[in-house]
């Protein structure tokens, strides 16, 4: 579906984005923020989400074929970049959906400025430090063999296994860029921003944590603790999925996202007081 891939220039930086459903002027905007492995234009989850709105799924700066400006070195920078993108497209009442690294970016965006946002979905998100300094919350993915990563990240490791040797050149370049860009943003502090925990109280949006329960890069305990840092956030497990539930269970993932988006505000987020 190459007609849905577009490129846009934000602050002089050209990025690629999948844009599905823009023909419907009244469609709810859904900003889909991909995890470190990038986003595939033909991912079923995007078509399923597009039944409930206009899906915009950019490749983050440095990922896929998107440019990255010099000096963009943190998820903090990427979050400001997306705030500029929302301004430029003049999107309102945006449902932000992020998986893994994308979930972290979503949280950073929402702590900075949620004026253009309606609700937040974070799936198997990284981004905060939960345990003590000697507890590794998040498996060191750069110390793993590829098959070990697949075993820990997926409910069904066969879904994740790639035959890179047979990849077309463009796809191998994207895979290499995704790996490098993830490290640029996440190498140290490893996969989190030490400041984020102290800023999550600023998120007043209805928030849903989706959690692929077979994820062994992150623990369920990590997800529940992270969820507990955002007032009123709900935690919903997704079975038979690991770190990438949008790929392993796209129907279930999209169904829950859209049900959450369609629910009345009070039901979506009982306004809990900050503990």
């Amino acid at each position: 579906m190459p007609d849905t891939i577009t490129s846009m220039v934000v602050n002089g930086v050209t990025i690629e984005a999948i844009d599905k459903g823009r023909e419907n002027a009244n469609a709810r905007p859904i900003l889909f923020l991909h995890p470190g492995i990038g986003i595939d234009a033909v991912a079923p989850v995007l078509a399923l989400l597009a039944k409930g709105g206009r899906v915009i799924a950019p490749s983050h700066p440095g990922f896929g074929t998107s440019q990255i400006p010099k000096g963009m070195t943190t998820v903090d920078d990427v979050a400001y970049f997306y705030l500029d993108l929302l301004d430029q497209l003049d999107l309102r009442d945006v449902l932000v959906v992020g998986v893994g690294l994308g979930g972290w970016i979503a949280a950073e965006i929402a702590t900075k400025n949620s004026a253009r946002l309606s609700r937040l979905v974070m799936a198997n998100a990284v981004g905060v430090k939960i345990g003590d300094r000697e507890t590794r919350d998040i498996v060191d993915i750069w110390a793993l063999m590829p098959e070990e990563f697949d075993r820990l990240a997926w409910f069904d490791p066969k879904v994740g296994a790639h035959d890179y040797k047979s990849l077309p050149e463009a796809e191998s370049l994207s895979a290499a860029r995704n790996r490098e860009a993830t490290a640029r943003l996440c190498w140290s502090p490893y996969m989190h921003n030490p400041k984020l925990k102290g800023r999550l109280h600023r998120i007043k949006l209805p928030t849903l944590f989706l959690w692929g329960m077979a994820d062994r890069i992150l623990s369920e305990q990590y997800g529940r603790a992270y969820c507990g840092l955002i007032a009123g956030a709900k935690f919903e497990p997704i079975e038979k999925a690991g770190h990438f539930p949008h790929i392993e269970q796209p129907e279930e993932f999209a169904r829950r996202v859209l049900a959450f988006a369609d629910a009345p505000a009070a039901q979506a987020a009982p306004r809990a007081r900050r503990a």
Partner: protein
Amino acid sequence: MQVYYFTEQPYYPAWNSHSGSLRVNLPNSVADPKTAGDLFHRYYDEWKIADELGYNIMVNEHHQTATCMSSTVIVGLSVLARETKKARILVLGYPIGHRPDPLRCAEELATIDVISRGRLDMGFIKGVPYEFPASNQNPVAVMDRFWEAHDFILKAMTSHDAPFNWEGEFFHYRQVNVWPRPVQQPHPPVWTTTGNKSQARLLGEKGYVMATLGSGYATRPLYDAYRAGYLAKWKRPAPADRVAYLGLVAVAEDETEARRRGELVAGYLRSSAIVHVPFRNPPGFLTVDDNARMLRGQSAPRSFTKDGRAVNMHHGSVQDLIDAGILFCGTPDQVTRQILDFTEYCGGMGNLLMMGHAGFLSHEDTVSNLTMFSQDVMPRLKAYKQPVPEATAA
């Protein structure tokens, strides 16, 4: 030709008791500190002997590894600055892109230059892939950080009249004023390493000494790129002393004994790549294009013999390594001829970095290797008249 004697100061007793990785994740419980102390003293004794035999000296560092116990060059340089008398002391190198504080680097190196009475050669390096998981330095864009650290260190060594300010991308200082300043003016010579031609050209423009390792009969294009950069900037041909080559050396009275020593010295190559696989290529260490090629299963061999046969540096036989110009091994006459043949091929090469000890080569063998080389090979290398690069076939 100058000769620098080098050993990695290995903890070789652990080489046979690992489970697939000699670096980063090999538990330090396998190394006995008492034995480590004995080995350090032995290696420093051998460097002292090398000093007396007329060698220069080279030291390095690696991290969390049984292949090299030196985890900071500053310790080795400090010991050698006072224990040796004549040798130039080359650090190759100091991984300045990994260090949190380049002001500290400048202070250490300036002090070592002063104590050694101006014998320091200052090699700055990026570091091998396995250093990144150990230091936790982000491998992505580490060369930007490297060059800022380099610029800062040289400015710190050459500023004498008032403290200066530095607010860069990576490092911040407000009152930089290194005490004492280095004795070599304007600063100790800068060396570095590379394996790629665009970097080689840049180093030529800077006029730094460029060293390569394991490049064998694929070295010439790197040197030529260096020479092109040098000529463009300095409007004269690069002298042979601007390039250096790290070769393994095993010499003995007869060829059989030399080959036995060669096999032991080659232990360095056989052990150096034994690393848990994910640590061999951290993200961002190679370019995106190189990584994409690797994903597609295409990786080009690095080492070649004179007649163009690819040799695997880590698994090749002693004969392969000799043919590839990686190991110089044989009687003094043979070794002299191998080195000079290689130098002719290079179009000149003014600094041999001689790995004269590795792994299980004993103290007695090491001293014998050093002594024989210094008596029967080094004088011929020193007397050798370097070729003019243009006059040699590439």
